[in-house]
């Protein structure tokens, strides 16, 4: 059933990483992703990669699941690799035919970039796999709350995000219902030319929009009844406190950076 579709990519669990504070996870993931770009040698990249693999182990998320996520971007990875392979012309020539010349520099560059992208996806999907959209939103709201000083409506943006998350399954259900109802009147969805297909969407989207506006209107009343008056002066049910887990993650991040900088210094730069 549609209602059972998982939103986002969250995999509930009780691993070390699942239990971390979402803010710490955001900081760690962001830090690790920057670290990938700080790497200049294969040796330092290996450290970041190993760290990522270690994190996946700790999270108890099967590698299979993670690789599924990689499949979606495999095309991007291949294109980038090919471009690097042909355009970087440093080092010894390995193969040369017609106008194409592949060099050792090109090869190592291409491998380097591929690994970078894969590790980047590893870290970011680990974040979404281990954090529910709700706590991710909460984490971001609190992490960015200093921006309130420069009048960024952080609370309001987070509220919008929460409501969107809340209504995704509801609207999903609704689309299913409307599609069935129009099919029951003989609507032919997904057949014929592009124009016909676009036309066939009208009976789905018009009611969906009309209903969404009605929902929004009713929700606004309900929120007013519950004294919502913008993000100011709100308190929260859940207080986030950093625990030992989070401090360990910061230490790991610091060690990671130290390692990268040292390795960058002692080995040959690829990029």
């Amino acid at each position, binding site marked *: 059933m549609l209602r059972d579709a998982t939103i986002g990519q969250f995999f509930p669990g009780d691993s070390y990483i699942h239990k971390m504070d979402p803010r710490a996870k955001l900081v760690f993931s962001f830090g690790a992703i920057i670290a990938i770009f700080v790497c200049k040698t294969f040796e330092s990249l290996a450290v970041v990669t190993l760290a990522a693999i270690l994190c996946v182990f700790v999270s108890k998320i099967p590698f299979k699941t993670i690789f599924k996520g990689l499949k979606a971007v495999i095309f991007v990875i291949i294109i980038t690799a090919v471009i690097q392979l042909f355009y970087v012309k440093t080092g010894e020539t390995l193969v040369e035919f017609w106008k194409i010349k592949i060099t050792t520099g090109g090869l190592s560059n291409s491998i380097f970039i591929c690994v970078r992208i894969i590790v980047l996806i590893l870290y970011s999907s680990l974040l979404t796999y281990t954090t529910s959209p709700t706590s991710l939103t909460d984490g971001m709201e609190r992490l960015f709350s200093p921006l309130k000083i420069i009048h960024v409506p952080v609370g309001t943006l987070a509220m919008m995000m929460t409501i969107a998350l809340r209504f995704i399954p509801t609207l999903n259900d609704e689309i299913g219902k409307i599609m069935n109802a129009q099919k029951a009147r003989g609507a032919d969805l997904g057949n014929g030319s592009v124009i016909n297909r676009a036309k066939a969407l009208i009976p789905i989207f018009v009611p969906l929009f009309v209903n969404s506006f009605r929902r929004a209107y009713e929700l606004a009343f309900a929120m007013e*009844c519950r004294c*919502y008056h913008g993000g100011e002066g709100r*308190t929260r049910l859940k207080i986030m406190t950093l625990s030992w887990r989070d401090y360990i993650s910061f230490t790991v991040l610091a060690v990671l950076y130290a390692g990268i900088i040292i390795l960058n210094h002692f080995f040959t730069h690829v990029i």
Partner: protein
Amino acid sequence: MNDDIIISFKNVNYRYESDDEEISLPLAIKNFNLDIHKGEFIAILGHNGSGKSTIAKLSNAIIVPESGHVLVNGMDTADEDNELKIRQTVGVVFQNPDNQLVATVVEEDVAFGPENLGVPQKEIRQRVDEALKALGMYEYRFSEPHKLSGGQKQRVAIAGIMAMKTECIVLDEPTAMLDPQGRREVVKYMQKLNKELGLTIVLITHYMDEAVLADRIIVMTNGEKVAEGTPKQVFAEEKILENAGLSLPDSARLASDLRKKGMKLPDGILTPDDFINAYSNYVNK
């Protein structure tokens, strides 16, 4: 000022704005007067479009009268400074349970009201747990709202209002979109809140068998109050109900039909059990 009155409608008139500025719509509420007492369970009956839902919105300053006044604990709803205090006193639960839950987790939804009011964290926790327990939803506190049944969603919505420590809950057709199971749940908890926790309940409905449970019934037609009294008094007025597009509860209608045939059943039969007792007493005589 009577301390016993929680909401007071005084000569209230209200009309909705038309999309077309040239046209002025007829009054949705006409010269409406009503005092709702603390701890009362009151039902407002009327057909669709009778103005009964407008009463819900008027009762906590979502809309304000065109003329006349609505006073909540003596505070005028037209005064914007009173807005938050009024909404902490009178909460409204709407018909569609899907469209009034804002959070992705039940307990966070219930916390929404207190969070908006700036209640300290510890107290929010306490209020949320209390409200969820009162509505029998505590074990679902970590559930996602969209995975609950209609009746459960509506109970979460009521808990969300209760967590603001409101004294009065106005329910605008809370069971119209529910299945019989959901209706039973909501009605049961509504009665519990009234009888055990002393909350004032205003139930807006077109289900006769729900209205029978109230202390007092108001019947609305075309924005006007056409009948008022205890269920027994109101359901004795068959003609008025008929004209208001409503019908008697089935048991009351059966009793009234049999009376017309010459059986001298007593007055005030409203529920099936009333009828069973009255009939067996009468036949055995």
